[in-house]
């Protein structure tokens, strides 16, 4: 069974909406006195949400008739990486002033930045090998490589836990689904059937 031809373009537009809203806000100076904070928050938040959506595909497609969802996974994964790239670029823009000498200091002194950067670094080869051609070329190794996304999910939770200062509400919103989704995979792997 095939997805309706409009699903993919619609999802594509949906994934671009947060970026469009941000650009619109920047252009009209509608982001308040400290746009850095809001831009970092929105890009990070959407990287996290799309990561959850990507991880949700496999459990969902096991259900009868939902198999075609697999066709959306690559787009969701690539948009996760896209928002992670925006997040990183905005960090360099607002916090480092594109000063390369400060990168090392930030990576060494601030653990949540180390975790976030590591997550981005692991995603990089996943994005580069996301094409059909690469999938064919790597064969079984492709699956092994792309299991790296589980590590990314754990690093993401570590990243937001270390950022939280006193209120862990938002951390739980992401941590609980991530742990459920990873837990489901562990159960699949070790269940007797």
């Amino acid at each position, binding site marked *: 069974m095939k997805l309706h031809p409009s699903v993919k373009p619609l999802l594509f537009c949906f994934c671009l909406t947060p970026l469009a809203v941000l650009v619109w806000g920047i252009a009209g100076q509608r982001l308040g*006195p*400290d746009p*850095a*904070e809001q831009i970092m928050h929105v890009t990070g938040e959407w990287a996290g949400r799309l990561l959850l959506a990507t991880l949700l595909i496999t459990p969902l497609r096991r259900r009868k008739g939902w198999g075609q969802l697999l066709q959306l996974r690559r787009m969701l994964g690539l948009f996760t990486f896209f928002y992670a790239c925006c997040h990183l670029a905005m960090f360099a823009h*607002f*916090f480092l002033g594109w000063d390369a000498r400060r990168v090392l200091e930030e990576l060494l002194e601030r653990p949540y930045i180390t975790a976030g950067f590591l997550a981005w670094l692991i995603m990089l080869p996943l994005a580069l090998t996301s094409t059909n051609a690469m999938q064919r070329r790597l064969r079984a190794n492709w699956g092994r490589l792309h299991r790296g996304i589980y590590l990314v999910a754990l690093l993401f939770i570590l990243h937001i836990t270390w*950022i939280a*200062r*006193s*209120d862990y509400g938002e951390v739980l919103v992401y941590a609980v689904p991530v742990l459920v989704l990873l837990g489901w995979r562990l159960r699949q792997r070790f269940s007797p059937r």
Partner: protein
Amino acid sequence: MLIKPSVDIPSSEITNHSAWLNRRQFLGASAVMMLANSSASGLDAGQPLKFRGAAGSAVAGAYTDEILTPFADVKRYNNFYEFGTGKGDPARYAGEMSIDPWSLRVEGEVAKPGVLHLEDIQAGFDLEERIYRLRCVEAWSMVVPWIGYPLANLLQRFQPNSRARYVQFQTLHDHRQMRGQRSFTSSIDWPYVEGLRIDEAMHPLTLLAVGVYGEVLPHQNGAPIRLVVPWKYGFKSIKSIVSIRLTGKRPKTTWESLAPQEYGFYANVNPGVDHPRWSQKTERRLPSSFFEPNRIPTQLFNGYGEQVAHLYQGMDLRRYY
């Protein structure tokens, strides 16, 4: 000489029960009138204040000619976790707090402990303007024209004794008015507590603000009375104060209790002491924008070193951060 109290009170002198009840009623009625009076004389956010301008102040550091952060931004970009952790939450929800009536207790190691009510807080001292830099530990900063009076002026009225070595401040604790205090996921042990050493508290730059931009403080900025210590990170400048206690022991402050490796008791602005979350070497002077982030280098003691560095002579600032 021995003064013996007379016990020979004639029964005619003793107030009969019905008159005693009347007296109670009279006192009750006058108390109600006083309350009514006090709410009439207390000012709410936005009302204008009379004050001396900062430009002519004799106090060194009371004035800066840097560009002011617009009032609209001072009002809408706040950290006041009692109303939520988002920067816009205080502006959205601080209206749920009532500042009238308000009482501020001054107690502990003082000769004359007492309570100040809203009208005493707002009109009991000469008001002056102070234009200060405000540096948040999150690496953003503003320039704000506060209206208030030196903390020293208030403390002197209650006569601290020689055992008073520290001052402890407390914010209102009322989860019905402060929705952030109702959060199940918050790890803060309310009420918010801050503290200063007595010499820091008595420093002429240490201000109790009751207004900003010529008006009574908006609730989200810490109405009706807040501390402003311009050489320390913003979280030291506690808002909506209900208690000032002079003590002999160093108070355990809220952020210090939560994460002692991140927030010290002193919390002096210092680009040389880094924080595990934010680099303290530079700051974003607000308003900042995408194309002009407005990053400027952070100064030791937020630029007030000439006035306050002597307070910390001989102290290792890397250890006592």
